[in-house]
């Protein structure tokens, strides 16, 4: 009993009061493209990018493909590319995940009235890893730890698809997992939504050369929320879902 009290006293208060206002020190979260010219013949950043996330003229980076490795930063002779720790990069549209000098941040999300009405007070999520490397999975798990405590917003991870309102998809969707993913989705009652978590789920990009993917699922069911990152930071997830559902923090 005394031991337990001691541990409790050391634990103190660990939760992040307002996840939207968090400041994750050191996090390489969002590319920042400086608004200055660079040699139009130079393709150094594109060459080093492992996931073809960079387009040029003008330079822009697709967070749906970017694995936030930072390899482009030292490669750019014009020092045009840096990263900051902005984690609010989730979006409701695939096209909205692109940053450029003229569009330095991901647009603030519009609250979905329909989703807010249905799930604003209670959202139960079923996680499916379909080729995920266990990094996004661990970050989804972290949502329920004492630091992030997503349960305080009425959001929970549940065991059965029958109990779920939303499917949290991680991984690039391996062919061997495609059928099980579909079965899980079919087992969820309507209305339901998909949340694509991590660069793999959003675009398959880190693994699309592997030729062992089957991404038809996402052609049939468009995600309501894209949570980029490699892995997706739990703060990106939580602020994205709260914004989508108009939940105050």
């Amino acid at each position, binding site marked *: 009993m005394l*031991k*337990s009290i*001691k*541990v*409790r006293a*050391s*634990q103190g208060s*660990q939760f992040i009061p307002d996840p939207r206002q968090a400041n*994750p*020190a*050191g*996090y390489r979260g969002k590319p920042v493209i400086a608004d200055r010219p660079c040699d139009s013949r130079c393709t150094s950043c594109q060459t080093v990018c*492992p*996931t073809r996330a960079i387009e040029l003229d003008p330079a822009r980076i697709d967070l749906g493909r970017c*694995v*936030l*490795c*930072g*390899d482009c930063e*030292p490669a750019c002779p014009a020092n045009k590319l840096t*990263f900051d720790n902005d984690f609010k990069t989730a979006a409701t549209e695939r096209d909205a995940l692109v940053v450029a000098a003229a569009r330095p941040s991901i647009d603030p999300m519009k609250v979905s009235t329909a989703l807010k009405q249905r799930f604003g007070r209670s959202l139960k999520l079923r*996680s499916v*890893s*379909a*080729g*995920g*490397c*266990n*990094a*996004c*999975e*661990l970050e*989804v*798990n*972290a949502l329920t*730890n*004492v*630091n992030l405590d997503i349960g305080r917003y009425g959001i929970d*991870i549940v*065991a*059965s698809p029958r109990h779920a309102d939303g499917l*949290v998809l991680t991984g*690039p969707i*391996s*062919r*061997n*997992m495609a*059928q*099980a993913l579909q079965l*899980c989705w079919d087992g969820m009652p309507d209305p339901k939504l998909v949340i694509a978590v991590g660069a793999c789920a959003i675009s398959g990009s*880190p*693994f699309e*050369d*592997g*030729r*062992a*993917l*089957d991404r038809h699922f996402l052609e049939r069911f468009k995600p309501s929320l894209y949570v980029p990152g*490699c*892995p997706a930071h739990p703060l990106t997830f939580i602020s994205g879902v709260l914004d989508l559902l108009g939940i105050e923090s």
Partner: protein
Amino acid sequence: MGPSKSTVMALTRELAPLSLDAWAEACGKSLGAGGRLVALFGRAEGEEIVVTAVLQSPGTGLGVLRSRAPRGARYPSLTARFTSAQMPERELWEQTGLVPDGHPWLKPVRFEGDRQQRMDEYPFFCVRGHDVHEVGVGPIHASVIEPGHFRFMCHGERVAHLEIQLGYQHRGVEAMLLRRPPLALTTTIESIAGDSSIAYAWGYCAAVEALAGLQLRPEVDLVRGVALELERIAMHLVALTGLATDIAFLQGGATYGRLRTAIINATQRVCGNRFGRGWLRPGGVRHALDETLRGDLLQTLEAFGKDFLEVNELMLAARSVQSRFQGTGTVSTQAAMDIGLVGLAARASGVPVDARWDLPGRLYSDHRIDTFTESAGDCWARMRLRMREIEESLRWVNRVVATPELELSSHALERFGPLYPDTLCVTVREGFRGPVVQALETGADGRLLHYKVQDSSLFNWFGLAQAVRENEISDFPICNKSFDLSYCGNDL
């Protein structure tokens, strides 16, 4: 002769290929003399398969045996005499079509190549008898974890056998690694098993550095060593959190969970990512440890260490924890050796194997890290061992980071020349689960001919199946968590 190295190289033309039978016999001889089969792989070359076995003999480090054989050739299975070869031989058969004659359990490892999407064809072992029933679980599980199928064959509550079918995570990694330039693979390597990014990235970097003849300053290895131990601490904490949560020991779960947050956030402050991605690159480290970061790390670890010991004491003293873990999911020392367990699972069953100790190289010879064993081989032993390993990792990182004479703050990555042609390089790094083996072979033009990746999980999943025997299904979650194996590391 220096300490056994965790990176070995050989010119492929000096690896005189044996006939397949002679090769199998030589492998058997090495295994019979107490050697271990570290990795087994093959690649197609025209109408032939080039087979390579990497063996570790006691006291002599890593060695390589090579053979060439026509496609579809057969050889006397090693598994018939050495159970530990069962998984590597299955993998070799699945990837190359070479048939180990007399293999008692020749089944697909991960349903790759032409077998993709044929998961329902898996030939499960079948237990027959009055009142025998089967319980199938997965591929999707109740919690947020990777997919895999577990089939329990039970008599009443007693599990007679568990068969584990994996492959759902197969992304075609090995083939993909050959489609990009050999120095541009780090981000892919970091995502093979994303919870072991550092162990994988280090093994890969060491391999291409050796293949380019680069000699790195010892300090680079020290920073990489620090990164690896931080990964070990963080991931052992995942297992401890899971173990506590699975038996509803909630205070343990809550405390280990937030302690892990402190460690991975410290990793993020060093390299920008909670999983250490972007930290290591061929030629060095992209993020060194300057004075500020060293002070930050020491402070984090000090606060961590105190609370960690406190919650361990609570967990170990709780009778509810003892009663759930002690005697549950036991793998005896003999069984562990027979089935060839590696890494933490082996050590928890009393088998002293650890690449940081057996293949210490320069780094771990100059900076010793202790490695431990437990004798019981049960869930308790695997839990206890994780606690002890975290404590030792803390001591090691503290020692390195707090020694001001060690210069850890250099930044520039070494420049690369071309890779040596016709060379095979094998690296072994002890990740938190066990050895991560990577073998790279270059062709005449210095490009990669083969990239073989092998996670310790390939060997250890069978250990979990053994551990569950004679237990109840309700003990499966804690057995599984106590092993904490990788699905994607197995499935590639």
